[in-house]
């Protein structure tokens, strides 16, 4: 049975702790670059936390928003790829076939969320840091574009398990690394096709928004707005 995997991020719960960022690096074998390349903007945070300042001291506020690949239904990154490396899979994910990628950058240019990251170098892990690598996820080489996969390795593992047990994947059974690590339960993952799933119910919230809705990408990452302040100054 086809799924439509989606994520809800409740910005009223998100505290900007970045547990998701570290979890993503560990789970997905994301290479660190180094100080010099980080200064060139070549870090590869598949998920990162945007911080927006509002107002001026002392009436200042900071808002956090974790941004990852929005897994758009109408993804601008897909039709532009000349090698079909980025494509839409049957579960609705914007998948990336690393072996097809020739590094044209068209997808990264098309993505309004700048959620795609290019490997400028072959990744280096000073031994024995290579032992930390997750054997379930391939390591990407130089010249390849990469991005958040919704932890497709975890989705596939759950789907195989469910099939072996002759049942459907249960709601909450699949948790991408970021969702699993979130201490305030700000992130919820599940099947948007299933109206009874937690993610579907939350997506119907009055606070639900999507990032850059006006560009018409129909993202499957849905944000719940932070409640406004109770302050009555």
């Amino acid at each position: 049975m086809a799924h439509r995997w989606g994520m809800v991020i409740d910005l009223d719960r998100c505290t900007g702790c970045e547990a998701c960022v570290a979890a993503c690096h560990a789970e997905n074998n994301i290479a660190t670059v180094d100080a010099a390349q980080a200064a060139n903007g070549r870090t590869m945070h598949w998920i990162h936390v945007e911080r927006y300042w509002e107002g001026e001291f002392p009436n200042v506020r900071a808002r956090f928003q974790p941004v990852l690949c929005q897994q758009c239904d109408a993804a601008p990154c897909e039709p532009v790829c000349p090698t079909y490396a980025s494509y839409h899979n049957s579960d609705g994910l914007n998948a990336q076939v690393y072996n097809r990628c020739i590094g044209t950058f068209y997808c990264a240019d098309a993505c309004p969320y700048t959620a795609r990251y290019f490997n400028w170098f072959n990744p280096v892990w000073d031994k024995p840091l290579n032992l930390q690598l997750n054997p379930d996820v391939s390591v990407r080489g130089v010249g390849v574009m990469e991005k958040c996969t919704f932890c497709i390795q975890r989705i596939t593992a759950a789907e195989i398990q469910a099939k072996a047990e002759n049942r459907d994947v249960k709601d909450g059974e699949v948790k991408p690394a970021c969702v699993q690590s979130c201490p305030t339960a700000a992130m919820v993952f599940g099947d948007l096709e299933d109206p009874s799933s937690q993610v579907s119910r939350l997506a119907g919230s009055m606070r639900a928004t999507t990032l850059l809705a006006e560009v018409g990408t129909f993202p499957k990452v849905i944000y719940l707005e932070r409640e406004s302040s109770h302050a009555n100054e």
Partner: protein
Amino acid sequence: MKRRTFLKLSTVGGAGAALAGCGEQTNQLIRFIPDETLVPGVATWRPGICTLCPAGCGLQVRIMEGDAEVIRNGQAGVVKMGLAKKLEGNPQHPVNHGTLCARGQAGLQVTFNPDRVRHPLKRVGPRGSGKFAEISWDEALQELLTHLSPLASPGSAHSMAFLAGPLRGQRRVLIERFLSAFGAAQFVPFELFDDSVLRAANQLSFGRDQLPTFDLAESNFVMSFGADFLGTWNSPMAQSVAYGIMRRNRPGARGKFVQVESRMSQTGANADEWIPAHPGTEGQLALGIAHIILSEHHRSPEAAGAAGSRIEGWHNGLPEYSPEAVAWKTGVPPQTIMRLAREMAVQTPAVAIVGGAPLAQTNGLFTALAINALNALLGGVGKPGGLQFTPRPPLPGHGSSETNSKGLTGTSVRSLAQHILSGQARTVESLLLYEANPVFATPATWHVKEALESVPFIASLGHFIDETSVLADLILPDHSYLESWMDDVPESGTTAAVVSVAPPAMHPLHNTRAMPDVLLDVAHRLGGRASQALPWKSYEEMLQAALAPLAHSPSSITASSPDDFWTKVKDQGGWWSAKGSAAPERESAAHAVPALKNEEAQFDGPAPGYPFYFLPYASQQFFDGRHANLPWMQELPEVLSTGMWGTWVEINPQTAATLKIEQGDLLEVASRHGSVRAPALLSPGIAPDVVAMPVGQGHVEYGRYASGRGANPIKILAPDVERTTGSLAWAGTRVSVAKAGTGELILLSGGPTKWSQERVRR
């Protein structure tokens, strides 16, 4: 790989197994036998204990089979072994409930760090030069015994000291027992952000020498004074889990959260109301709020009990702390003080939290006592939605002395340094060092480095070379915490009594030995008092013996025999009781200590020459600097600044404009005691008279990722301490700021920065 090389390597691996000579041969052999429980490609989960900060979260370690390149007896080989692949929170653990922060997850890079000490080392160059030669464990232990045996003989004129992080559980018991064999030995725990002021205050207010636990899940109003409780302070995972529930899990009720601080922290960014009070005036603000609650008769002064009696004028309604007087001192408008007081009195349960910078002032104890009194007045102490204490496990010898402030404030690194430098008769002849880096994390004016340099013999039992252990003559490297038997007794973060226990999650990668086993071995070889105090053959045996009495206490474990109990403890990752709030132990002699008068914070450096309050803060990436050698943390953008791989000076944009400072300009930040340089980061979340720097960078000797990067703000701090407890007043220094050139600021290159603020409803 060529077939020939492959065969050669396989043979070497086998030969290594046969030849592994030192230590217990059977243990050595086991390292080379593939883990039989492991199926290639299938993950196994084993319990663990996070040691990256003092919170004591429970871990779940993902183990998969892999090929590790190891060197044994000088020969390289590849062995198949179970390797830790990911760290996650233990879902059953009462502290973190299956969650784990960014630092905890990066703990994988502690075990696999390329800069770990891989075998015993002996100093060959001048002290501090970092020149060491590899020696065998037998040689290393012999060397250690040569230095320790004379000190163990009765009537020895010299003493020894054990300088370590504030260890808990059986590691602490072991070290104390070990030291009892020596005539004049002292345990010197050191931690920069040690919270001992708060423990001392809780002892005075509530009779509990312990950090508090907050039941935020049930709170309707949370006011935090400087505590980064969602980031780095106390038990951040436990507090974050509860915060999420407070905000959104209770239909119709969303707890309000107010943060008081002069520089917006990650925690403060989440507040509904952010109040920048002047540094060091947080206690006065709390008493200003209490004044309104009392004068408007929302509560009676008696409601606060002993905690109220600690404050002079409490029973007269705190006449000194009228809104106008407090507003003048704190910079918070009187209307705000009155409004907050009324909201707090009505929106119950309400709780006040204090931690971090407000307590790192010369008047830190006064501030903590004032906020404790406010909490007691609000009626939430020991109640749902309020301030509680984690019960202590029913173990003999697990009293307060073991976990808490007695040790911390008893012999501080500062008095140890003074003692050594004074050249008194019973000098410190030998120093053992373990997981503490005071040379990095104390002000230069404490002269810790100079003191340690004059100690005749230093042995380090840690697994990294840092600014302190580089001074060692001998390094006996520890296993990592994933390779050792671990135990912990969390001090806060839950209302269950917890003893965490975890067997090694993986075999050791290098030729290291666990610190507790080394001490047991040394005690055995010393004989006499030492071996009597520590009769156990291994740390595992000691742990099992220590936990045995718990089999009879009510908990989630039902066991049929002692062995069954031990197996279940190991599988679960520890022992814990059912949750229940531990009522504070009210002290009988509440009036034995005189009530505290209003006390102003004293800052080092006159305002004319040093116009800015200087705030070094616990870093989201590196905590107190110990994680600067983890590349994942170096490249984790600090969430408010998005800074990576460096240090910066946070300054208010208007102040910067006045001083003609632009983003990225190199600034020289100077106190009366020294200066550091770092690029300017213009941040609207900081008061115009405050500059802040994250702690953690500026290492000179901490491996390839940390060394020579950024600046260390701790070095320029004044030597001032909190007046009563003697704890470092790390937020009590004033500085000047001057432009010194062009700096480099590494910030996250942003995503959809402009657009995403214009979000559209679905």
